[in-house]
């Protein structure tokens, strides 16, 4: 087969590139073939992009594969008018954290409190009346209509974000950028269903992930560390110096008790009751002290990796460093704030380095210092290089490639564009072993199917819904901080496989009214010429004789397309 030759040749190509800063030395390292065959182009499109649209293989051949990859590494140079105009329908995407809080989350929080008080009063009333039966029913169902409407409004922020994610993945010309947004969001995973995380997702993806996927890792790490989404998801917003927190609470307790016990203070029985209730409240909310969750995942998942050489002691020390990194009013869309009162000002030792403690606002500098140390640690370089190589090359990436990419990381101060480039232009990327080596994740499958059929996304909801239910990979819905697995074993199971075939059937059957596939122009008939063309543009002509036989039997164009998209060949990239 022709693709078997692609990896063997280390081609040193001379091609014209728009970007002049691209050093000549890096160019000569490139293993991108100058005259690639269709399987090689398909391979690149399946990795750099979410698979080919009709005609993409020819387009890339015409512009040159190396030029295509380089252009994708510079998304800022690629116009994207179709997506720009589609996204204009979702104004929440561009609203600031403050605008979102003002419009949605603060009013919702105010109403929630108001509602709680009302319910408490009603409960007291029914208690007096002794009416037990009235207590029945679901509290959700008793919500006043205006509150339900407000909730729906607020929920639209997340729905818009999901729509946008799908539309961009399918239609954006900046395909590598979208692939990387998915990759880095998953690396810094947060879960929409935990508490108020959903209120922060829009700004999290837009402001902490998107700007940096081809930037410097340290910048993304910092933006994530400051994001309310991550602070809430991994509980750091509650993490406080146990001494400091208790001291404050104890002072309050003492104050109240002194007042209650002072015979000269005139305290009415009502005031006494109130004070007792307040006392109970303060005791209940007594800070629990240090929370290590963020500190642990920061090292295990975000930077060093599980065998990256840190100890449980390091986890505790890093947790102390990040005390005070919290959210100003976490219920109500509040923003990041550093609270010196929660911060542990003592000296810490992290990975053998002494971090001097600071009182007051300077305490925040300790966290920045630790992020600096972690970002440029050799274990981090290796961890990031491994994950990227796994995404772009194979489930078990060659160690030589990982080492090379890790060296690029360290040499470029963690420049993710250069690390990504090193992988996408490596001989390993173009090796026979990498060809169709990966199974698409459900997201990659659904998006690539929509692209392969040139589907027009009017409303992305059917894809969002399929991912949430039958395909089993809900957007923003991965519970553990480690994120979705990207390897085949996680996604190939009986139910999920059938779900893919059914998704293919639905997509081309135009049962998904919100998503249109123009079947007549894509497949006017089931003739051999049509089949050859489709197999060529979707799978570079390479299918098994068995798959070919099923296509030849297809009674109509819809079934022909479904058999292509549901085939084992299409599940791979």
């Amino acid at each position, binding site marked *: 087969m022709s693709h078997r030759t692609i990896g063997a040749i280390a081609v040193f190509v001379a091609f014209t590139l728009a970007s002049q800063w691209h050093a000549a030395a890096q160019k000569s390292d490139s293993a991108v073939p100058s005259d690639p065959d269709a399987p090689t182009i398909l391979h690149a499109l399946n990795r750099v992009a979410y698979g080919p649209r009709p005609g993409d293989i020819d387009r890339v051949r015409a512009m040159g594969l190396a030029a295509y990859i380089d252009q994708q590494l510079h998304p800022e140079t690629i116009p994207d008018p179709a997506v720009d105009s589609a996204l204009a329908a979702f104004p929440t995407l561009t609203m600031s954290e403050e605008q979102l809080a003002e419009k949605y989350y603060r009013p919702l929080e105010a109403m929630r409190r108001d509602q709680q008080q009302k*319910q408490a009063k009603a*409960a007291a009333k029914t208690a007096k009346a002794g009416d037990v039966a009235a207590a029945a029913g679901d509290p959700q169902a008793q919500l006043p209509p205006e509150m339900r409407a407000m909730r729906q409004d607020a929920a639209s922020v997340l729905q818009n974000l999901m729509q946008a994610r799908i539309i961009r993945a399918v239609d954006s010309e900046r395909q590598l950028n979208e692939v990387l947004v998915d990759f880095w969001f998953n690396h810094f995973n947060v879960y929409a269903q935990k508490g108020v995380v959903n209120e922060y997702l829009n700004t999290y993806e837009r402001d902490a992930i998107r700007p940096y996927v081809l930037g410097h890792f340290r910048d993304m790490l910092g933006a994530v560390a400051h994001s309310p989404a991550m602070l809430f998801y991994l509980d750091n917003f509650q993490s406080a110096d146990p001494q400091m927190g208790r001291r404050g609470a104890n002072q309050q307790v003492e104050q109240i008790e002194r007042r209650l016990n002072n015979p000269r203070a005139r305290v009415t029985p009502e005031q006494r009751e109130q004070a007792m209730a307040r006392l109970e409240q303060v005791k209940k909310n007594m800070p629990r002290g240090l929370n290590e969750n963020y500190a642990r995942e920061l090292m295990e998942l975000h930077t060093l990796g599980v065998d990256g050489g840190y100890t449980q002691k390091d986890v505790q020390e890093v947790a102390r460093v990040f005390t005070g990194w919290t959210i100003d009013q976490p219920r109500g869309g509040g923003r990041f704030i550093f609270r010196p009162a929660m911060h542990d000002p003592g000296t810490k030792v992290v990975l053998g380095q002494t971090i001097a403690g600071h009182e007051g606002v300077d305490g925040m500098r300790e966290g920045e210092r630790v992020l600096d140390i972690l970002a440029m640690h050799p274990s981090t370089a290796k961890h990031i290089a491994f994950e990227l190589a796994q995404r772009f090359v194979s489930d078990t990436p060659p160690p030589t490639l990982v080492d090379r990419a890790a060296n690029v990381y360290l040499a470029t101060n963690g420049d993710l564009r250069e690390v990504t480039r090193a992988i996408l232009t490596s001989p390993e990327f173009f090796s026979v072993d990498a060809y169709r080596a990966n*199974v698409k994740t459900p997201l990659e499958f659904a998006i690539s199917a929509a692209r392969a059929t040139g589907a027009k996304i009017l409303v992305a909801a059917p894809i969002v819904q399929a991912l*949430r239910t039958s395909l089993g990979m809900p957007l923003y819905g991965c*519970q553990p901080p480690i994120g979705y697995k990207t390897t085949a074993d996680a996604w190939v*199971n*009986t139910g999920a496989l059938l779900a893919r075939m059914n998704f293919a*059937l639905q997509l081309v059957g135009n049962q998904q009214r919100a998503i249109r596939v123009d079947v007549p122009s894509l497949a006017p008939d089931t003739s051999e010429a049509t089949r050859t063309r489709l197999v060529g543009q979707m799978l570079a002509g390479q299918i098994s004789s068995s798959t070919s036989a099923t296509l030849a039997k297809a009674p109509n164009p819809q079934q022909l397309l479904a058999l292509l998209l549901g085939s*084992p060949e299409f*599940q791979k990239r």
Partner: protein
Amino acid sequence: MNRRIFLKNGTMAMLALGFAPQFITKTVQAARARRKVLVTIFQRGAVDGLSMIVPYGEEWYYKTRPSIGIPKPGAETGVVDLDGFFGIHPKMAPLAELFHRHELAIVHACGSPDPTRSHFDAQDYMESGTPGVKSTRDGWLNRYLHAREHADATPFRAVSLTQQLPRSLQGPAPALAMAQISRFGIQAGRQTDTMQADFESQYAAAADQLLGTTGKEAFDAVKMLKGVNAAGPYTPANGAEYPRSGFGDAMKQIAELIKSDLGLEVAFAELGGWDTHVQQGNGNGQLANRLDDFARSLAAFYADMGEGMADVVVVTMSEFGRAVNENGNRGTDHGHGNAMMIMGGPVKGGKVYGKWPGLAPERRYENRDLAVTTDFRDVFTELVTKHLDAQTTATIFPGFTPTQRLGILG
């Protein structure tokens, strides 16, 4: 017996449709092997265990719950007595009978060593089976399945009656999620049969081994179910009446799967609505309505299974219990220890297991919640080693050494 009839008719049906006979051989062997089945049920949202299994012999119980306490046995809407100290919620009366027949055991004051009162974290920990460790990727049930992979396993070895695979079943061992067993398969209208055959031949020739074997499993499973679905709507045995609810429907389908001898070993179902912060109710009301559905579904399953319960154990769990004191809204807030139920033929029932810590303030966890005296993993350990065939739980509950032997399963 039902299962024999199915095997005969099912076999004929499959042969008539020209399906591969090797599966039938497997199924017959499976039937002979008398598989043990574990049915796990998650009450999501933290059920109030003190209202399910009521310590009516505790003075603190009524002191702390003036409006939501369930009255003593004999009173109107009072508890049904279990052992002179504990009673079961009146809406769960159908299960009291099982307790007295020694087929239902309770473990009270059971839960997680982790202090979290977050639903999210606590459910995660109970399903991953690793309290306090967030990065665990697979679930405890899957680790059991993986540790005991065997050649006789069918695609129906582990089935969740949910839309998505629950956390406890996620991992390397195969497991199926299907909310409706009648909807499992290729859905192509009138073309379903040909499309299915076409996809099957594609996957039989797949270059990728994982896709090839999984594809085969998938189509084998579809064919096996076809036999079940072709037999027409399922009729429960012994006059069992399942409630018309999501949970009742799930339990009914689990019974159908077990009786169809498809090789089921682990089943999962769930039901929510337990987060009763406001207007919880007592013998009647919000919680009572949920318990009614819960208990009637379980009782119907038990009746429907009949003698089949000799090989089946059902366990119920919830992420944590609720605070001892009722709150200002006649509800309860998030707490700690809770009650688990274990029922089935192999169960040494009729007993409330676990050390009862008492409800006096100084005996509570953090002065407010029912303390945990039994780690939930101690219960799970007995399920997988005594009922199922795990030799050790070292890989199923990494880092955990069982702290006590309860003897729920002898």
